[in-house]
């Protein structure tokens, strides 16, 4: 059982400490934007941030969460998109959309650390985030676009 700071709010999670953060979010708090894909950190669908670092929430026990959690719900809404999400919309990235929460959280962590990543740096940072619809080229384009817009801002 733990108090977590999620998207700036303190949330009480009534689950044992060993429960993965993924299931605390989905099962405990009904925050379904974070997706279950593989459960073994092999697909990236469950990516969230802890203190700005991209992590696989299926591999982090609630009791081990070391900082503030940010999920896809915390970075923008359809009416108030983040710059990165707006780039996702502009480039029409999503197809089935299931992996995109994880993609966006991974990309946001990349841009926070590296405001102007190269293609190779993007591929490296995103290499653990699988997309079965093959939206990779649009993801890369959206990250570049968001990077330049963030630098203009």
């Amino acid at each position, binding site marked *: 059982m733990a108090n977590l700071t999620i998207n700036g709010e303190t949330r009480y999670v009534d*689950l*044992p400490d060993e*429960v*993965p953060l993924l*299931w605390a979010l*989905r*099962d*405990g708090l*009904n925050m*379904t*934007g*974070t*997706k*279950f*894909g*593989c*459960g*073994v950190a*092999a*697909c990236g*669908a469950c990516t969230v941030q802890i203190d700005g670092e991209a992590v696989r929430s299926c591999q982090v026990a609630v009791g081990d969460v070391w900082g503030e959690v940010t*999920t*896809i*719900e915390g970075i*923008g*809404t*359809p009416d108030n*998109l983040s710059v990165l*999400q707006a780039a*996702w*919309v502009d480039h*029409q*990235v*999503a*197809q*089935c*959309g*299931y*992996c*995109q*929460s994880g993609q*966006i959280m991974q990309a946001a962590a990349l841009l926070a650390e590296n405001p102007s990543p190269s293609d190779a740096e*993007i*591929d*490296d940072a*995103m*290499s653990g*985030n*699988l*997309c*079965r*619809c*093959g*939206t*990779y*080229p*649009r*993801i*890369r384009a959206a990250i570049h676009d968001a990077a330049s817009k963030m630098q203009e801002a």
Partner: protein
Amino acid sequence: MQRLTRMPAKVSRRGFLAGSGALVLSTTIPVRAPKAQEAAAGPDVPAFLELHTDGTARLLSPFIEGGQGVFTTFAQIIGEELDLAPENFTVTSAPPGPPYGVMGGFRITGGSASTRTAYGLMRQLGASARAMLLQAAAAEWDVDASELTTEPGVVVHAASNRRAPYGDLADAAMALPVPAEVALKDEADFRWIKTAVPRLDVYEKSTGKAQYAIDVTVEDMLLAAVLHAPRLGLTPASVANLAEVEGMRGVHSVHLLNGAVGVVAEKFWQARNAVAALQVEWTEGEAEWPMPADFSSDSFRATLSEASGDAVEIEATGDAATALSEADNVIEAQYDAPFVVHGQLEPPSATARFNEDGTLDLWLPNQAPEQFQGAAASAAGIEPAQVRIHSQMLGGFFGRHFLYRTANPFPQAIAMAQATGRPVKLIWSREEDFLRDAPRPLGLARFRGAVGADGPVALEATVVGEGPTQRWYGAPPGPDVSAHEGISGKSYAIANSYVGQVPVANPAVIGYWRSVGHSMHDFMYECFLDELAAAGGLDPYQMRLNLLSGNDRLHTLLTRTGELSGGWQSGPYEVDGTTRARGVAMASPFGSEAAAIAEVSLDRGEVRVHNVWTVLDPGQIVNPGIIEAQVQSAVALGVSQTLVEELVYENGEPTARNFDGYPILRPDQMPAVHVDIIESGAEMGGVGEPGLPAVGPAIVNAVYALTGQRIRSLPLSKHSFG
């Protein structure tokens, strides 16, 4: 001589779907039906379309959205005729029922068939609704409807300068009878069709708001997980530590199911943990397709390779046998492709709720609502009319969510909801998904050919195995196009050609996978064609052009593909310190035509694909943006299966149970994809699948040009290079 009429590609497996899986040879997809004049009355507008007083519209789509963009495409088509901007639509999946059987009495979301099947109907729906709005305004203003026009979302009476937003007329319009006949717009006046209208779902899918079956929440529901028998055919005899598992925190109950043990708990993690703790004794049970305990993909490949039964003739031109017997040099080769999983990122799930009146609500992913409704009714022991199917947005499908009996979670969810008296949401872990997926069948084909100075003079192909349409809809060898499409149905003018099939049953539970038979057969055929080119000392691109002389559509397609790539060259050549080469291939899938050129190099002994140039001719288009995205997506899956994908069975079980043991394409393996679309004006073809089949053979042919190694067995990752 063509002794058996070739089935047109568009028939594919769809011809066998009507009538509870009965073989209905005469049923084909009515690609152009229903036309306006064929409908005795107008289309059933209220069944599909709601007009709201706020000026928005709701469409109940007969086809399910899973990334292919059909919701947006349909809003675009209806909006065109209705004169309402597509962004004013919300689109949801229609429930089961006769109004939605728009494929001639049935429907499935598959076969790249949605838009080409329903294009006419969607236009008619929009035009009919617009006519009803005009009629409502005419009555309101006491003028003749012929004096009225529309602007997007507004009815206009220019003579009196009166305007009425659609929302103000919505209630009156929807109460009117649907006109029997309406005129459709002239294509020259299209405002949205043929433009890249943005996807309607892109905001929800970029903010985590999109809801999938796995996200469904029902009041008072319990969560469930299952552990399947490691081999299909085994079933639980007992659970040694039943009391211990029942006593775990949050666990509600443990259920012995057919071929699996289920645990129901308050939370999914508790159910999953409890399932992991189960100590199950398995015993031989009853299964429709029990997996032999010694089954392996290697042994099955050998079985296909050695199969010597009589071939069923699929198609024949000239006399290939005689031509080959008279040829100086006969080229022979055998090709195979492995089992592959669907690997959709959303694991399968189903939520079942029985209601006090005996009805059942089911929230689940599916590509065929009426078939699932019938199967769910059987599983629950009630009538189909008592089952409400809530078809959810699909987190990828690629053929995963057809009715595959042992591959669908809903019968287990129904059983556990019945047993507990509570709503149950069952989620399959990725390991259970891999274990019970209905993979693309392992396939094999044998080729013999002869080539002269001007190109191939004879080509004989024998496909060995079973297609999914025989498995699921009883189509016999021959008419089951899924077993040979991509080897049959080619358009090259080879004077003596023969395609046959030696039927061999596949012990695995096989399914449809994006582009179905084409996903492997075009690889086999197009690579063998390159073998003939090499044997004849011919350039593979020029040889194909020669084989297509007189076929303007395909000649243009291949020429355009060559131009898109900057002019055909085979290589090898040097770029950025790498040695690269190119290969070319073509395919005629699902009513469309496609060609691809791939550029490869070797990177530490592994094939790297740098570029794919591909041109799709779907005849006619609706949304070029969505088409480009679908082609990029199909290319990605084509590259993935060619490079790295293979589901291996040993001892009756798949050896990989998750993405850690079954690689799929990573971002750094993705080539640059250059897409061009030709709108030739031919009959509208499919879009979602046709971009895939030419990719694999283009890559493998490029590998030959680069290395001289002729790869006849996929994936490339199991071969050594350089």
